[in-house]
């Protein structure tokens, strides 16, 4: 494949053409599986040609664009591969946006990185699906983000996501309520006391912290009708963990948001698209559903091949909005297919503890409240 003429934003004609086709598909009201497959195979050919580490994987398992006829055949990378290889289809100098996962330094674990040569697909995917699943009934709403701002966390996909949502569909009064890693408690309290409905968007650990402060101050709220909660991010060891049911009960008891207006988001730094509970749309709890431009299946954790319906396994995703990196990836999350979506069952166990850590870690875990 010969690189074609570049345009003024750095993307060559082939890339722009592919992006335009994907954007049209994202905007499509009647998307077909055939069109998804066509775009998926086009993306695979594009990525096989341009992403050398990915091509290594494909060559090792003997599968090139000539060997596949459906998106299900496309080789998938392990999501953690984004931590050890640059999985991008463009030179580093053309990186426009870069997301990093949270990683640790002493454990030897490295952070995953997703590079985008253009934010167009990411933003289109984010906005279209968020409006569809979370805000189908209002054009705009106040968004109160309990995540760090872009200035505080320039490589956080969650911060980028919240900032783009605020810029695009956030009504007056929207903003970030974490400053320097700390919850802006008084500002959030005042924002929650206003009479316009709001979307409270935050990580589980931020909500727990906020609810602890509310309890200490005997504070409860009754948010206006239409208000909703989007919880994301899990705990990641940054706060005391609480059972999910307890957290969701607090959304109602402390914020006054009914359970059927609370949804959980599933996403990761390595992916351009997100999955949401359909609670707000149809009242179903816990079923994560993705957009029509990203498909998820459950695969055998060892072979990475699809399991029988109803069996659990790892979640494998093909996301067209990942055009600039690798569309097909296997996550480390366990799930089971349900109602054209999946139930999230938790993280796969992964590597066993090492470095003499077993017994004292047990002590640590149990010692946490």
């Amino acid at each position, binding site marked *: 494949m010969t690189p074609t003429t570049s345009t003024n934003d750095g993307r060559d004609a082939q890339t722009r053409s592919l992006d335009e086709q994907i954007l049209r598909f994202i905007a499509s009201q009647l998307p077909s599986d055939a069109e998804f497959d066509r775009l998926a195979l086009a993306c695979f050919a594009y990525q096989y040609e341009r992403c050398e580490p990915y091509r290594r994987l494909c060559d090792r398992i003997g599968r090139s664009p000539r060997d596949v006829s459906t998106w299900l055949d496309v080789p998938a990378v392990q999501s953690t591969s984004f931590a050890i290889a640059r999985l991008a289809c463009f030179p580093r100098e053309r990186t426009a946006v870069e997301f990093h996962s949270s990683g640790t330094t002493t454990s030897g674990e490295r952070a995953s990185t997703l590079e985008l040569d253009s934010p167009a697909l990411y933003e289109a995917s984010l906005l279209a699906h968020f409006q569809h699943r979370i805000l189908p009934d209002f054009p705009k709403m106040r968004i109160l983000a309990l995540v760090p701002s872009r200035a505080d966390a320039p490589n956080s996909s969650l911060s980028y996501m919240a900032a783009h949502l605020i810029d695009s569909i956030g009504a007056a009064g929207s903003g970030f309520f974490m400053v320097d890693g700390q919850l802006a408690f008084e500002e959030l309290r005042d924002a929650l006391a206003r009479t316009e409905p709001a979307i409270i968007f935050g990580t589980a650990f931020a909500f727990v912290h906020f609810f602890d402060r509310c309890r200490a101050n005997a504070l409860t709220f009754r948010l206006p009708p239409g208000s909703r909660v989007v919880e994301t991010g899990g705990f990641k060891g940054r706060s005391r963990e609480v059972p999910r049911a307890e957290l969701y009960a607090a959304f109602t008891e402390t914020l006054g948001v009914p359970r059927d207006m609370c949804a959980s988001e599933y996403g990761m730094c390595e992916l351009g698209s997100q999955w949401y509970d359909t609670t707000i749309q149809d009242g179903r709890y816990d079923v994560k559903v993705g957009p029509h431009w990203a498909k998820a299946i459950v695969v055998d954790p060892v072979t990475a091949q699809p399991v029988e319906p109803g069996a659990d396994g790892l979640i494998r995703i093909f996301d067209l909005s990942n055009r600039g990196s690798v569309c097909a990836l296997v996550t480390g999350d366990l799930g089971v297919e349900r109602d054209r979506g999946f139930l999230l069952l938790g993280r796969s166990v992964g*590597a066993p503890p090492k470095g003499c850590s077993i017994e004292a870690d047990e002590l640590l875990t149990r010692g946490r409240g």
Partner: protein
Amino acid sequence: MVDTSVRAELIARGAAQWRDPRSDVREKARLALRDSEWSPAVVESALDDVLFDLDEERARKLAMERPNEDERPVLVILPGNIIGPAIASAYCAAAAGAHVILKSPGNERAIAPILAEQFEALGKPLGGTIDARYWKGGDFEIEPTLFASVRKIVAFGSDEALGEITRSAPVPLRGYGTSYSVGFVTADADLANTAVGAARDVAMFDQRGCMSPQTIYVEGDEGRSLLFARALEAELRKVQETLPRGRMAEDEAVAIAMAIRKLSVSAFPPKTHGLDTMMVGPETRGAPGFVVVVEPDGEPTTEGFARIVSIKPCDNVDALVGVAMTAATKFESLGLSGEITTAQRERLMATGFLRVCQLGEMQRPPFGYRPTVEDFG
């Protein structure tokens, strides 16, 4: 002085019993660990090595150096991934003249009581100095009182867990946290001989100890790394017979499959030499017996567990120093094959390695290395 002399003699006698495969303690340990998560051959090899250099002269020297007057015990929270620290802790405490509480891990509760029995049988002054216990970690009925009653805690765990103990215990903690080891093969090293030792270092305890190499740097180009990887693959195949893998932990086959997928994108292209750069060993106990992957140089891959090892080309020792200085990894040991200068060794140690030893000896640390006799003084 009489006490020191008698103590040294008993320590040496006890250590010799652990080295002797026909001794009572070895037989007891063999029986107790026959259904453990390590293969019997690995257990035997580990017990052969654990006190290999503790003779009477060494014991006498240590006992005279570290007289301890404090009757309060030292608490040792033992690890569950390897068995050496239990025995090493008991003998370090003995050398220091300390009483010790050995808290066994949930998956291995036999060694500490065997040590306590052995010390009783050896007699005073060792008899009665070991209190072997087990409780489930984090027990609020036991730990606060116990932590306050000892004069020191020696614990093996992650940095986060050790930090938690530091916060909750009112006494000093000597912690051995998570760290990683690497190997380095110099340009003059014989690759086939090096692979023999490296395979043993990788295989012991199925790479779950922090002294097991996860990445081995090979001085030279990618081709030399590939040659070493092929030699290591051959040795790991043999080692599957002599030091078989232990029982698979739950979901370990999944973790191995995920690691293989992860490493598939970082391995050198397979067509470079017409040979594959990722060698997956024959299946044993439901998962590949080992994985050897040749990757580009740079930061060490810390993927290693279940005998997964990364081989990386490295220009020279200076390049390794450069990698070690910038790596986000906390290092333990550097296993070496070939010669380096004293100055080079010092520069490597300055980057954070705690020990430089020969490849093949990485899982055979000298007595008093980890823990140390000072930990109990």
